[in-house]
Each structure stands twice: as structure tokens, then as C-alpha cells.
């Protein structure tokens, strides 16, 4: 369970998160929508401790992410994150990209790590690309590799930060299909996205962020069919 309590965060004088409260249960898929600068991506990087927070608290299965004694490297094994920019390790093959963390972080033997990597890469449809270097693949393929790389750590939670925003429109579908597949498999996910159809399809709940505040949260039907908040209505009208 991810518990976010009254989280505030500023970059110098700009307050990007103004007291966010959100609880995500095991197995739940929550998507976060909203305009740029609404703080949604920042929240994700705070959840796995890549960014510090100013006040409030984020707990993952009871562990306070930003407490002094927390071993973030250990915590991050159970919280995978995939970014807008897929951030392939360019000097490693696709297989090596996925094997690296299981070997070095989990300390698995080479053949065991390889077995996991092959399984995850097959899962996201890249079984043919094992020996290829990332720069020889399309953005969509590299993004799916990044997803496999995160999944190879057997995370209990996955965070997706606008994973299709930097892709050519024709490549968006393959990545969204991968996310859908994960959602159907029961992965606990928080997805920041601009893909409204996707949000409506896969989410248990949809949250709308506006200027650092979670303006509204509800089931996809509530948010997309009968939004209560004026800003939500405005935003949805603009993206339709």
C-alpha cells in the first residue's frame, strides 16, 4: 500500500505540490491526469525518493520513504519507475540493460539474471532484440525495454511517468498495450498520462491534478462522464 499524506514540495519559490493526499491499495491502478506543471510527475519521483519532500509523509508498506534511516536502494527494488525518456544504458545490449540491476543489486547469478531478463523481454515483445544495442531500436521498443528493465527487479509497485509522451504517435499503442497487460495481471500501478482513452480503460481510479493540488479523484466513469470540479471539466473539454 502506498500512503501519501499531505505532501508538499517546492522548487525554490515555486510550490509544485500543495498538500497531496492519496492512498493506493495493492492491485489498484491509479492514473493521474492534468495539465503540465500540475505536479503529477514530481509526485512520482517523490514516491520512490528520487526527490526529497518539504513536508508530509509518503509510506510504502508502512516504510516512511523520506525518513532518515530508510534504505532507499532497498526500497526502490520494490518500486519500479519508468520515465518519459526511456534512459537506455547505451553501452549495454538490450539483454544486458535488463540483467544489470538483478545481477548487481539483487546479487543474482548470471544465468539466473539472464533467465529473468529473457522472460521479461519476451513478456514485452522484445525476444528478438536481446543482442541488439538500444540505439538500433525505435523509441517504442526502447520504452518497452525500460519497462522490462524495471519489471526484472520483480517490483510490487510500478510508477509510469508519461511513458508515451516522447514517442511518435504510431508507437504509442505498443507501449500502452504493454501497460494494459500489466494492469490486467494485477500489478499495482500509478500512471501519469495524457492518454485519456487509456486512463479510462485501465484505471480503477483517476486523479485530476491542477496547479499542485489533487482537484478531483474518482472512478473513470465519475471523472470522464460527470466531473464535479470546474477545472476538471475545463481540462477534459480541452483534451477532447
Amino acid at each position, binding site marked *: 500500500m502506498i500512503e501519501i499524506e499531505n505532501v508538499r514540495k517546492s522548487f525554490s519559490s515555486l510550490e509544485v505540490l500543495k498538500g497531496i493526499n492519496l492512498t493506493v491499495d495493492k492491485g489498484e491502478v491509479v492514473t493521474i491526469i492534468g495539465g503540465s506543471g500540475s505536479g503529477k510527475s514530481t509526485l512520482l519521483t517523490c514516491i520512490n525518493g528520487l526527490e526529497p519532500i518539504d513536508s508530509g509523509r509518503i509510506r510504502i508498506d508502512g516504510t516512511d520513504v523520506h525518513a532518515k534511516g530508510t534504505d532507499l*536502494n532497498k526500497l*526502490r527494488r520494490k518500486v519500479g519507475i519508468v*520515465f518519459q525518456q526511456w*534512459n537506455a544504458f547505451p*553501452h549495454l545490449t538490450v539483454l544486458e540493460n535488463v540483467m544489470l*540491476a538483478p545481477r548487481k*543489486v539483487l546479487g543474482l547469478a548470471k544465468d539466473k539474471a539472464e533467465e529473468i531478463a529473457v522472460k521479461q523481454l519476451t513478456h514485452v515483445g522484445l525476444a528478438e532484440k536481446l543482442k541488439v*544495442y538500444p540505439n538500433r531500436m525505435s523509441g517504442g521498443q526502447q520504452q518497452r525495454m525500460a519497462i522490462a528493465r524495471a519489471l526484472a*527487479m520483480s517490483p510490487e509497485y510500478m510508477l509510469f511517468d508519461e511513458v508515451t509522451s516522447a514517442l511518435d504517435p504510431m508507437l504509442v499503442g505498443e507501449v500502452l498495450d504493454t501497460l494494459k497487460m500489466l494492469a490486467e495481471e494485477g500489478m499495482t500501478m500509478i500512471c501519469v498520462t495524457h492518454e485519456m482513452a487509456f486512463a479510462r480503460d485501465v484505471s480503477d481510479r483517476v486523479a485530476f491534478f491542477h496547479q499542485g493540488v489533487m482537484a478531483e479523484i474518482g472512478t473513470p466513469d465519475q471523472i470522464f462522464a460527470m466531473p464535479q470540479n470546474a477545472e476538471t471539466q475545463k481540462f477534459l473539454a480541452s483534451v477532447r
Partner: protein
Amino acid sequence: MFNTALTWNDLAFLAQGAGMTLAVTAVAVTAGTLLGILFGVIRFQLGPYWAAPLTLLLDVFRSVPLLIQLVLGSAFQSIVKLGWGAFTTSGVVLSLYTAAFCAEIVRGGISSVPVTTRRAARSLGMTWWQDMRYIVAPLATRVSLPSWIGLTLGVMKDSALVLWLGLVELLRASQILVTRLQEPLFILLICGAIYFLLSFPVARFGGYLEKRWSPND
């Protein structure tokens, strides 16, 4: 073609000098690179403000002519009574000189690794050290290699200045022969050819590595 008094013994003498050049260069480049990596990482980690004293010190070694550094270094070690020989003194001064340049190369290499790539590594649970070792080091090495090869070749030639501390390296050996045989052009031609033979493999090895790594970028 040449009517020369140069004997095989003289050539062996030149070869010995070349051996000294190689030894001084090997010490300076090895120690200088290790120190340079250390200083470069410290400079990068501390940022411009906190690393300012180190940066200033390295700037001194980068800007004062090497000859002056060698003479001052030699005088310093005798004043403090370190009891170093000419080879040790030369090695220490050249290493610091090399380290000062290498630190900049390393810092530039580390800066060239995108923050987002490092973030991805850390988000997989890698420690700072693992990120440095498996992501930053290989990527930064690729970027830094051409400058580092240039530095190595430069140091090999600059190492001729240690003759001022009394070491008989390649250039000094040539000078001695020139004084004795009075055939400056011919002997310096040989001397230059030997420098080339020493440098060429290093340059080609750099080229080979660059080529080997480039298809992955």
C-alpha cells in the same frame, strides 16, 4: 647514404634513453590518471563552490610551465630533505602535472552522462557506487578517451624536460651524442623517429578503442 660516425653502441645508448622516457611517462600517466580520476570525481561531486580550493591548486599545476615545476619541485624536496632521487622527483612532479589535466578530462566525461540516465540507474536500486561503476565509468570513458590519449602523448614529449634534473632520457641522450659526434641533424632525425615509434602505438590503440565502441552509441 649517410657517412656517419654513429655506432651500434650509440644506438643502444639512444634506446636506453628511450627506455627512460618510457619509464617516466608510464609512471606519470599511471599515477596521474589515478589521481586525476580521484580529483575529477571529487570536483564533480563537490560542485564548483566547494571544490574551489582543489580547482585552484590544479589550475596552478596546469598553468605554471612544467620546467619551472620540475626545478621548484627538485629544490623543494632537497629543502625539506625528502632525499628523493631525480627519477622520483621527476615522477612526482610529472604525475601531479598529468593529474591536473586528467582531472578536467574526467570531470568533463562525468558531466557528459545525462542526469536522467543516472536517475534511471538509481531508480533500479543501484547505489551511488554501482551507478558510477557500471553506468558512469563506461560512458564517461568513451567520451574522455580521445582527450586522454592526447594527454598521454603530450606527457611523453613533455617528459623530455626531466633532463634538467639530470635524467638521461631520449632527448638528453641525443644531445650527448650530438655534442660528441657533431651530427645534429642525423641524430635528431633518429631521435624524432624514436619518439614517433613510441607515440604511434598509443595513438592507434586509442583509435582502435574508439572504433570498437562507436557502433553502440
